[in-house]
């Protein structure tokens, strides 16, 4: 009987626990600091003191590391890679998870030295708050300022300045207040530069001793009776959660069109901001066609309304042309449709920015060719000012103008973090070379509106690219007629302008120079000249530019996919998206 009661009690406690868990939200924050600021120690301390570390993990690091005997080196809890443990440094962004009775936390723990800007920007991009570490024995060093700058640039609203190593300065209030005053002045200058004021919170801590990290060390019994404020964790628990994205205007980037059968056509995506209701009248950008929401479908049943950041499927009341990369948005607060945007760019690649090169710009679910046409200036993170620049190197931040071949629907980053953010990809190396935040965009009245000069005279390569989604080129195919047909059909299916020239035609056989002339004329006019040499070969040989691949017959899908890749490698196809090439 006693056992049964105990079981009952446990079940009741569990129900209560699960109910409380259901109420928890999620806060994402980033951390960064210089090499010896004790950042890893701080994170290790947060994890340890919130009982988020398992005993076997503690056991596996006990007696290792650099702290005094009997103490745990908390940094070892977070440095995950072998090189990090060997060198005692943090190399790459690491994500940590812990939870308190109030909420769950995701920590983006970023190193303060190597690739600092790139890593800090990565961590800050998804953060609702940032902890900036300042070494109490050294004051506000350049790393701390950089981090505060990047947090402000990426619109992280709350910045918690943890003045660490208070134990080394005798828990003295005077130097803490001096650092606070100095840092407030820095934050004001940063706000002047980025146009975004952050809400700053200063906390004196000792990560090593645990003072003011989880537990307060003020007032009554603590080491810093002069400090009346909350601990770092108490602050994190009290901050408003994820950017109240559902207050903003409705934005829904279409990720995928779902068409399981002829009765259903829905648009799958994650609501980037705002709220949608059944019956809302919305527009699709950049085409600006309008429709009403007929259904908000989910696996768990239809909804009457849905808000950011839920992933849903929208069904509209009438058939309009919508594909991946389109943005469904509110009509009364429409996004800007533009082919030229100004942006703050964080450069993240070893190869510096090249204004002559073509990059791929990814924005929401849309990827398009783009050129960074001008670099206006570069931020001097040391002096917190701007200087003239013609390019950007790794870890530099600058203001640029980006030109696109096709218009995109954007918002300013300061108004919408989801629809104002972009990345640039190098189409040759496939590296992510830059992160961008839209600072200005000039709207176009009409989709595809051309500027005066381009509206007259000869059609340009750029205009053809914009319309057809690929460049001109030659694709030579040698193999069975079936496999050549399959490739031709696949190009037709994706909307490519591919003109087939059969080399076996009598006229071409008699006058090979005729085939050469036709091929080159087609390629120069922006089409794909598909030179077909049908024969008995089992293997299909495909050649485009300098690249050639031999594809054994068999899986037709595979052969077609490889030819499309070849076209991408040869620079003829310019984007990753199947439908848009």
């Amino acid at each position, binding site marked *: 009987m006693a056992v049964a009661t105990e079981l009952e009690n446990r079940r009741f*406690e*569990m*129900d209560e*626990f*699960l109910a409380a*868990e*259901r109420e928890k*939200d*999620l806060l994402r924050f980033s951390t960064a600091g210089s090499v010896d600021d004790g950042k890893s120690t701080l994170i290790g301390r947060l994890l340890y003191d919130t009982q988020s570390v*398992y005993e*076997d*993990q503690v056991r596996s690091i006990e007696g290792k590391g650099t702290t005094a005997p009997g103490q745990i080196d908390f940094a070892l809890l*977070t440095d*995950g*890679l072998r*090189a990090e*443990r060997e060198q005692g440094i943090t190399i*790459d*962004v*690491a994500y*940590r*998870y812990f939870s308190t009775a109030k909420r769950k936390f*995701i920590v983006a723990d970023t190193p303060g030295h190597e690739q600092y800007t790139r890593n800090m920007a990565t961590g800050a*991009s*998804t953060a609702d708050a940032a902890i900036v570490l300042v070494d109490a024995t050294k004051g506000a060093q350049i790393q701390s300022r950089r981090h505060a700058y990047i947090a402000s640039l990426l619109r992280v609203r709350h910045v918690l300045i943890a003045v660490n190593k208070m134990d080394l300065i005798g828990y003295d209030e005077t130097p803490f207040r001096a650092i606070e005053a100095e840092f407030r002045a820095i934050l004001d200058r940063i706000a002047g530069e980025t146009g975004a004021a952050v809400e700053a919170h200063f906390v004196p801590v000792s990560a090593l001793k645990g003072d003011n990290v989880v537990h307060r060390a003020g007032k009554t019994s603590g080491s810093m009776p002069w400090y009346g404020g909350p601990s770092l964790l108490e602050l994190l628990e009290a901050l408003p*959660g994820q950017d109240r994205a*559902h*207050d903003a205007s409705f934005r829904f980037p279409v*990720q*995928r069109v*779902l*068409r*399981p059968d002829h009765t259903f056509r829905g648009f*799958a995506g*994650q609501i980037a901001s705002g*709220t949608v*209701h059944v019956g809302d009248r919305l527009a699709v950008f950049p085409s600006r066609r309008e429709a009403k929401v007929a259904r908000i*479908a*989910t696996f*768990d049943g239809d909804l009457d*309304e849905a*808000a950011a*950041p*839920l*992933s849903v499927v929208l069904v509209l009341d009438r058939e309009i042309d919508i594909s991946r990369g389109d943005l469904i948005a509110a009509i*009364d607060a429409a996004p800007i449709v533009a082919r030229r945007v100004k942006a703050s760019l964080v450069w993240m690649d070893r190869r510096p920015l090249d204004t002559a090169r073509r990059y791929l710009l990814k924005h*929401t679910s849309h990827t398009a060719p783009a050129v960074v046409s001008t670099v206006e200036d570069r931020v001097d993170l040391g002096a917190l000012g701007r200087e003239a620049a013609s390019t950007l190197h790794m870890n530099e931040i600058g203001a640029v103008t980006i030109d696109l071949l096709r218009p995109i629907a954007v918002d300013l980053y300061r108004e919408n973090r*989801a629809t104002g*953010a972009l990345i640039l*990809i190098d*189409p040759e190396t*496939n*590296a992510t070379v830059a*992160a961008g935040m839209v600072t200005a965009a000039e709207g176009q009245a009409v989709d595809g509106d051309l500027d005066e000069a381009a509206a007259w005279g000869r059609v340009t390569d750029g205009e053809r690219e914009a319309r057809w989604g690929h460049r001109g080129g030659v694709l030579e195919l040698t193999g069975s007629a079936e496999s050549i047909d399959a490739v031709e059909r696949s190009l037709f299916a994706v909307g490519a302008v591919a003109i087939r020239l059969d080399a076996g035609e009598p006229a071409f056989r008699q006058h090979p120079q005729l085939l050469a002339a036709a091929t080159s004329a087609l390629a120069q006019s922006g089409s794909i000249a598909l030179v077909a040499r049908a024969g008995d070969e089992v293997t299909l040989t495909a050649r485009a530019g300098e690249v050639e691949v031999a594809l054994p017959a068999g*899986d037709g899908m*595979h052969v077609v996919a490889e030819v499309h*890749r070849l076209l991408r490698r040869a620079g003829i196809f310019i984007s*990753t*998206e*199947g439908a848009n090439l």
Partner: protein
Amino acid sequence: MPVVESAISNVHRAASAIAPPRPNHLRLLEAESIHILREVASEFERPVMLYSIGKDSSVMLRLAEKAFYPAPIPFPLLHIDTGFKFREMIAFRDAMARQVGAELLVWRNEPAIAAGTNPIALDTRRCCGLLKTQALLDGLRHYNFDAAFGGARRDEEKSRAKERIYSFRDAAGQWDPKNQRPELWNLYNARVHPGESIRVFPLSNWTEMDVWQYIHEEKIPVVDLYFAKERPMYVRRTPSGEDALLPIEQDFVARTAEKPQMVKCRLRSLGCSPCTGAIRSDADTIPAIIAELISFRSSERANRAIDHDQEGSMEIKKREGYF
């Protein structure tokens, strides 16, 4: 006209004043994972979902059903079968694939299995290398998959904490932790050269607790081995003085004259039977498992022999191509 407009804007204000309730952490994680699943399915030519039958795979499979509903899951499931998986796991796998209507592919390193590869004949590291890593790389290459979903979470192990959601692998399937692409916002770079591929981890930001809570809330079926039951086990004393419980699924595990005992126990994570120890437990429901998790003092991979062969062993395996 202005009157009408102001009436409309009043309605808008009223609507935004009663904003829908804030989604809890599970809804937020779910929305993020669904976004990832849809991006990959839309940007890659031949994606596949690595289905390992465990609780994380079960959650990932449910998220895939949700991501494409009412359309079917647009990619196949691939199970890397070492031949040492629990019989209950294989039965569960086949039933689940039928239930969700997904195509199930199974890949085994048959030559290595025929040669008698097992963790006792070889060491665990070489056994894993052949039956898991090699089999995975061969399977992906055979089908020419360019993106593979895995159910790994960053909270599982320290080197995983540094892995991207889109984890780039070179033509040999290897991971270079020092040369990862920066990943900002939810803008994932899906570009790969021929032969290269991406491993994608839609559950990156989930914790073990999140996974169990989601299974509970969503009533997702999981293999019975997770629930405590009397099971025959070899009970061995470890050097640290604790009991290790080894399942009796494979004959070669038994030492001379070793007799199995009936023990009330369960598995915390599902792997190969010779390398997955059970834990003594009374947790026979999901809330009981969650309660146990709260009181647990060891992380979930602690009962996997394979992660402990040497310090940083998960990182080494991943560099070689392991998930």
